């Protein structure tokens, strides 16, 4: 394979891995729904970034559409989960306020 493409894939792929790990670290170390949700979204972005990076096949060639479809699915799943988690959080706060 073209080394230039490989280097680009590797660079962005590693950034994706770094995002994944940063998010996981923050998820473990920090408390509070806020920080955990931001952390999880960064984790997700990291995984998606890896997929986008490996789908890249040079500026001239059409990228691999399959990882792209996976990422689209993943983004929608991530926003669903975030919305549900935030609703959980809001109801906990409400109960705290009433208590």
């Amino acid at each position, binding site marked *: 394979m073209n080394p230039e493409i490989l280097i680009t894939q590797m660079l962005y792929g590693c950034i994706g891995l770094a995002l994944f790990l940063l998010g*996981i670290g923050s998820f473990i170390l920090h408390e509070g729904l806020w920080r955990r949700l931001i952390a999880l979204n960064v984790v997700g972005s990291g*995984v998606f970034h*890896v997929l986008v990076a490996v789908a890249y096949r040079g500026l001239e060639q059409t990228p691999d559409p399959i990882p792209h479809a996976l990422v689209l699915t*993943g983004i929608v799943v991530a926003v669903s*989960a975030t919305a549900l988690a935030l609703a959980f959080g809001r109801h*906990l706060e409400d109960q705290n306020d009433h208590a």
Partner: protein
Amino acid sequence: MLDPLALAVAWPLLGALSITLLPRWAAHLGILAAVGATLSALGVAFAVMDSGSLTSELGGWKIPLGIGLRADGLAAAFLAMVNLVALGVSIHASVYFADSKARHHFWPLWFLLWTALNALWLARDLFNLYVTLELMGLSAAALGALSGTRESISANLRYLLLGLAGSMTYLLGVALLYVAYGSLDLVQVARSLAPGPSSAAACALMIGGLSLKAALFPLHFWLPPAHASAPAPVSAALSALVVKAAIYLVLRLWLDLFAGIANASAAMLLGLLGGSAVLWGSWQALRAERLKLLAAYSTVAQIGYLAMFLPLIAAAADERGRASLLVAWVLLALTHGLAKASFFLATGLVQKTTGHDRIAELGGAAQSLPAATFALGLAGAALIGLPPSGTFFAKWILIQAAIASGQWWWVPVIMLGTLLALGYVFRLLARAFTREPTPPHFVTSARAELSALLLAVLAMLGVGLAARPIANLLGV
């Protein structure tokens, strides 16, 4: 061309959608959809028993471009158990939620969970598994929070977040496999899998992420609060089915996908975690003060047994030894699924009638709630592993395999776990059977009690007696 596999997924989804549209008819549509889904799943199981594995390529595109569904013996056995339990839970829930505000919300979410479960047993596409895991995680968390208490919301929020972290970790593993092997199909990737850094990393990520979802010790900490605070029918489904789905995937990936690289020391690590789970979970169950907490910790222990099989399967001398361990694994998992569901449903009856589930105050339950107590007793006996339950045969095979392969240290763990289980079940029954002047509540609701009882009977007698057909189903 009728596709029984697609139908098994489509039925519960159709149920969820129709209830979403017509919430007034929720309970009726619910029972209708539950019966339909169960029949379609049993149809798949019988078809597999008749003619071997079924595969279908959805959308008419060849795997790996299209997504494949597959039902082999293992999947069919679980599909049948899951749908029977889910049917029992539905019948119970139609009484449990009859006059509660939560009923509008229970039914559609419950069928979405059911969709996810059926889709998960049948999936053979690694990314499709991720989607079903998320569907399962979201619907399970939403169902668990239906009791609306602070406790349940915060426990299930934690479950939701950890589940997301687990499935994201799994997805990164899938991404690595796609990079290295250019396919998402489980069977195809397994065929071309070679030892090396990328397959090892993918294995670690996927098994690790799933262990979190399966609550394998020491990642079990989220389970007891989440399962103990949910409404009883939901607890039954979570403990009996949802956790089982994750540990089933661990086994499935371990044996089918990573067979080429899964080495003995990694299996031993998982086995040791399993052994610790058995001891810790059973001990905590013995100390639990509430019935539901007891049941939840007992699930942690049972997941431990299921993980303990891995090093023994790895060390099995020949194909026959391996196959009999696999049968034992399935027997244990099926029995636990049925027994735990029955246990939680019976607990729900106790909680509804007495208004609490504190073990210390259960005195006289045997007089006031004979059916529920009987179900608790039978399910408890199946959890301990008294003959002729499936657990008994499973533990027997497990001990034999441990001795045969020289891994004798599992034997005391199994013994101790069984003793502790005896302890926690009898502690509970002893309480229930004390004679105390309690106002009698005879049959509270025949429908609700019957489903708990039938599941308990199936757990105690059905699985053990059906060991032969199950072994046939698994192709042994």
